[in-house]
Structure formats: structure tokens, C-alpha cells
């Protein structure tokens, strides 16, 4: 299991695969990902593995400020 935005989810091979499952394409604008508190550049979404237990945060721009 991995922890995605605070809720447990089945493992995914890569960040890109996880995002696809969430309905977020590789070209999605205004989206960023952090793994265990460290920001992961978009260029590494495809290559970066997701070991079980990884804490994944997926954020996007919302109205504010």
C-alpha cells in the first residue's frame, strides 16, 4: 500500500502510473507531486518508482489568496 494524500491506496509502479489511475495525465497543468515530503520534478514522474509505504502528496492550484 501507499499513502496518497492521506488515504491508503494500492501500490503503483511509478508516479506517472499512479497519476493516470487518478485521472491526471502527464501533461496536466498546475499539478505537483511530493514523495515523503520531497518535491519530485515532473521530468521524473515516469522513471521514479513508488516503494510500498511511500507517502505521496499530489497538489494542484486552487482559488486562494
Amino acid at each position, binding site marked *: 500500500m501507499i499513502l496518497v*494524500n*492521506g488515504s491508503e491506496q494500492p501500490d503503483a509502479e511509478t508516479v506517472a502510473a499512479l497519476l493516470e489511475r*487518478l*485521472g*491526471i495525465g502527464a501533461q496536466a*497543468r*498546475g*499539478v*505537483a*507531486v*511530493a514523495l515523503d*515530503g520531497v*518535491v*519530485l*520534478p*515532473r521530468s521524473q514522474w515516469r522513471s521514479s518508482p513508488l516503494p510500498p509505504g511511500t507517502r505521496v*502528496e*499530489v*497538489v*494542484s*492550484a*486552487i*482559488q*486562494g*489568496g
Partner: protein
Amino acid sequence: MQSKAAEPDAGAALDADELLIAGQRLRSRLLLGSGGFVSFDLLASAVKASGTAVVTVALRRIDPAARGSLIDTLTALDVWVLPNTAGCYTARDAVSTAQLAREALETNWIKLEVIGDEHTLMPDGLELLAAAEQLVADGFVVLPYTTDDPILARRLEDIGCAAVMPLGSPIGSGMGIANPYNISLICGQAGVPVVLDAGVGTASDAALAMELGCAAVLCASAVSRAENPVAMAEAIAAAVHAGRAARLAGRIPRREVANASSPREGMANLAAG
């Protein structure tokens, strides 16, 4: 009509009067927060009415059920999207949020907010300074939301912030500028643009900020929560323009007693008999 000779100069000065932040030319001195608008359509109408060039956004966990794209809406409006670190209480969280924002929005500009408590939403000066220092070192263009403390504002400028953004009064309070004297002091000493951030309730607050010497005004709730947000966006934009023009025109000093504007000499003798 007495001042006619001065008009062309004043007009030219205002026309050439551009807001520059970190070398970036911005077409408006009003920055708009995107928070509080009940729909993207209303946000878009208000952005257009305000003439703003910069709109702030926040970052949150993605909502798979969200409809429409805020970024697409703002991109279509040809405005600069300025992410903030709203909701962060520590320098560490603010720095991480800024890094997420840079990745998400492909901008190294950040409106840095590090608040001290949820009751006042006032900035925590120590955490703010620490976060600003780290972000400047990491290559960010840092626009810190700060208290109206001239010393803290100076420290933020000294460590390399591209602007300082003191609050007029607490976020969303609409109480205007609680301490105009402090805002004026900050404007008087700053070598970077001063942006009045937070507290604007209506047009006159924005005009006062500009008259005190602010380079720009940022507001959100004043527009988004007004009865008619589009009309208020227009009103505040006009106030920012008027306030800036008045600042450049040079107001008369305040006096404690009257100073007649009509000559004292040459009065007709109207005595009876």
C-alpha cells in the same frame, strides 16, 4: 483650469509610471486574489473588470471531483499566476509549498505567507524571515506577506525579497489600513515595491494605500465577497489609479488651522451709510 500648464507633465508621468517587480513590468498596480469567488466565470469577469495582471492561487491536495480548471481559466485571461503559501505555519512547510508551487506552475515567484495563528492570520515574523532567506537562496522571487512592522520589512528587503507586502489589517477583515503611519514609514524607507496586502474593504482603502506611497495593492475578499464583485473590482481599480495619481501629484500638507485660498486684500467696503 488654473493648473492647465502642469497637466501634460503630470499625464506623461502617470503614463510612464509602470510597476516593476524583480525587473518584471506589470500593467496594473492592482493584484487580485482568486479566493472567495463562487465560480470561475465570476472570477474571470472580476479579473477583466479589475484590469489586473497578477492573480494569486493557493495549493492544496488535488480534488478528483473538482470541475473545470482554475489554471485554464486564468491562462485564458492572460494574467500572471502567482502561487502563495497560504495555510503554512512554519518556514519548513512554506519552503516545501513554494517548491511544489514552482513545480506545478513553472514559476519561481512566490507570495510567501507564514501565519502565526488562525484567529488573526497574522504573519509569524521569525518563521517568515527564515523561509524568505531559504527561498531567496534557492532562486525564488519572494514576495512576503508581512506585518506592518517597518523593521521586519527592512529585514525582508535586506535578505533579498523582491517586494514587501504589509497587511493593512487582518486578512478578510475589511478593516482597511489600521496603521497608516506604519505603512507610510515602510514606503518611505523601502527600496523595493511595497504592496499593501490584506485588509482592504472598499475602494477608499486602496486609494489610501496608494496615497501613502504603496506601489500596488493586493486584495481578494474585498472583491470576491462584495455584493457585486465585478462592480467592486472596477471601483477598486479606479481607486488604485486615483490614489497613485494623487501620490504623484503631491498632496498639500495637513494644517491645524485654515489657510484661505482667496486673497485677503481688495475686499469691497460694504459698510452701511
